[in-house]
């Protein structure tokens, strides 16, 4: 995938570019907003990572100009601001996701992956039936089966599983789950998400040979079929 990084902090930019290249992406970098906008408009870019505060052209203005010209590529906004409302303004300006500095590379990678594969897995927001291996989830009837056997889930476990299935094969971080399933944007001090996940794991994996819900060390979770 071709990724454009628009970031004025050289150190952070270089590490980011290196990390993205290591997992096989093609990376272009720009050090200011104008250059970033120029590159985003002239090169075939699949995804852009844009810092919010940039010299020459502000990150939000860049995203707005990009959207104004009809470019629909996914944009991840990085911000070093105070948060709370900044996230909303960032998303309103046309960003698809928003990450506050300092971030873990694993968090950023997971989000880039989610943005890049949005709509690709077939399990999109509009699909009525989500499927992974022998696990099936019907959004209309709210029925979950594995290997044809019905699995009883609470409303929240259902939502959690639905989110995981829409991102099947990807790494999903704890903050992504808290944002995507609960719509909260804070770091809980306790391991609240882990406990929810372990309950879901009990429900869907316990009585079956092949586990589907995996823990990705230092990053989060992944719902996938192991080879």
């Amino acid at each position, binding site marked *: 995938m071709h990724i454009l990084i628009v970031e004025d902090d050289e150190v952070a930019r270089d590490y*980011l570019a290196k990390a993205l290249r290591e997992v096989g992406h093609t990376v272009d970098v720009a050090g200011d907003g104008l250059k970033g906008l120029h590159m985003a408009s002239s090169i075939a870019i699949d995804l852009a990572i844009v810092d919010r505060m940039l010299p020459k052209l502000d990150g939000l203005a860049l995203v707005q100009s990009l959207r104004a010209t009809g470019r629909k590529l996914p944009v991840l906004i990085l911000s070093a601001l105070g948060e709370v409302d900044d996230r909303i303004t960032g998303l309103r300006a046309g960003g698809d996701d928003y990450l506050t500095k300092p971030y873990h590379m694993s968090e950023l990678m997971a989000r880039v992956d989610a943005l890049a594969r949005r709509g690709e897995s077939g399990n999109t927001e509009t699909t009525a039936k989500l499927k992974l291996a022998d696990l099936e989830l019907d959004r209309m009837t709210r029925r979950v089966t594995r290997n044809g056997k019905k699995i009883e889930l609470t409303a929240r476990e259902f939502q959690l599983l639905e989110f995981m299935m829409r991102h099947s094969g990807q790494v999903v971080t704890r903050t992504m789950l808290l944002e995507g399933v609960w719509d909260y944007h804070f770091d809980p001090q306790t391991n609240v998400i882990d*406990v929810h996940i372990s309950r879901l794991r009990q429900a869907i994996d316990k009585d079956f040979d092949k586990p589907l819900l995996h823990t990705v060390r230092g990053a989060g979770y992944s719902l996938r079929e192991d080879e």
Partner: protein
Amino acid sequence: MAAWRRRVLSADQRFLGLLDTSPFRIAIVYSMVFACGAALLLGVVDFAVSRIVDGSTDNLIEAEVQGLREQVLVLSRSDFIELIEQRSQDQDVRGAVYLMVDPQLRPVAGNVPAWPKIGSNDDKWIQFKVSVPFGDETREHEMRAQRFRLPGGYRMLVGHDVQERQDVKNLMMRGLIAAVVLTLLLGLGGGFWMGRRILAQAGAISAVATQIMRGDLSQRLPVRNADDEINTLAREINSMLDKIEQLTLGMRTVLDSAAHDLRTPLNRLQATAEGAISGLVPGSPERKVIERVSTEVDHMRSTLDALLRIALAETGTVAREPVNLSELVASMVELYAPVSEERGIRLESSVAPGAEVQGSRQLLAQALANLLDNAIKFTPDGGHIRVLLRAFGGTPEVVVEDDGPGIPADKRELVLGRRVRLDEARKVPGSGLGLSLVAAVTKLHGARLILDDAAPGLRVSLKF
């Protein structure tokens, strides 16, 4: 507190509200004073006028009596009768009345049909009524007269028609009453009108104040093109608001740059550490050191996030929207239920439906998360936590109760300050900013934060 709640008044309440405005009250007092003044003035005038008019009538009668007393001594009875008849007919002397009666009180001469049977016959002054032709009808006229004895048992009455004077008096009295009533009506009407104006202006001001409290600092009070007190006051308040907006935006800018200047190097540090980790053998001492650095960056980030959120809440520059408090509390309880069950802690909740507040959902969620984190941290295994959302007449109250060690009464104020961790709490992890953030968020929402003894344990309640 009802700061963000618009008061919705019924028509009755609005009318009563009008009666409660200061112009209306002033108008009532002034109308009363003015009406009393008018009544007093007219009373004095009436008294003076009647004294003068009555006095002159009485003098006239006295003189006539005196004259007739003299005449009766020199004239024969028939001449005296003729004199009386003559005077009775005299058209020039308007309103004069005479009556001469014999000892049996039968009229002998004069223009009064019958001897008035009032009081004792020897009373000097009497007032009585006589039917007087008035166009085609007759009218009862008030007469004032003196009676005296004539030689031979005859009696004489000399008087004057005072009906006209009475009419004037009545007219004056009616005028007086009308004037008082009119003054009161005008006063009340004026009071109502001014009261409505003031209410409208006050309503506009409180609507703007509500919006400003909601965080929209660009709002200004409406100013009319007049130099009255309210407009002058509104202008002064507006320049004060300019200043506040300027200061708050300045504060926000400082916060943003502080955030930026701290987050950027932290981000570099994190990126560098993570970059280094990937090149090191897992478990090696070097890698452990770098991992430690990365963990510390995480701690710094949490503390920075908490501090920034506190500062944002305290400057009040957070956008506000209606927040479904019932949904929020229920979902927070649901989020924390499994983690407390892991510790064998029973998390009970009772959430009243339909509670709504104006504010920031994310900050409220963070505050609740801090309270629940704390409760779970300090409650012993197998303990129990209660979360309540009560709603009394639109003022919701959120209560989180645990049966942990609680906070001694003398230290409750203290823990709400920044970075205070009681000695007993040092062994559990945390930044010590949890309750400070709860306090800032509570204040931002115009709510009250109360720490109490749950005997045993801590009861924290947020009263909106």
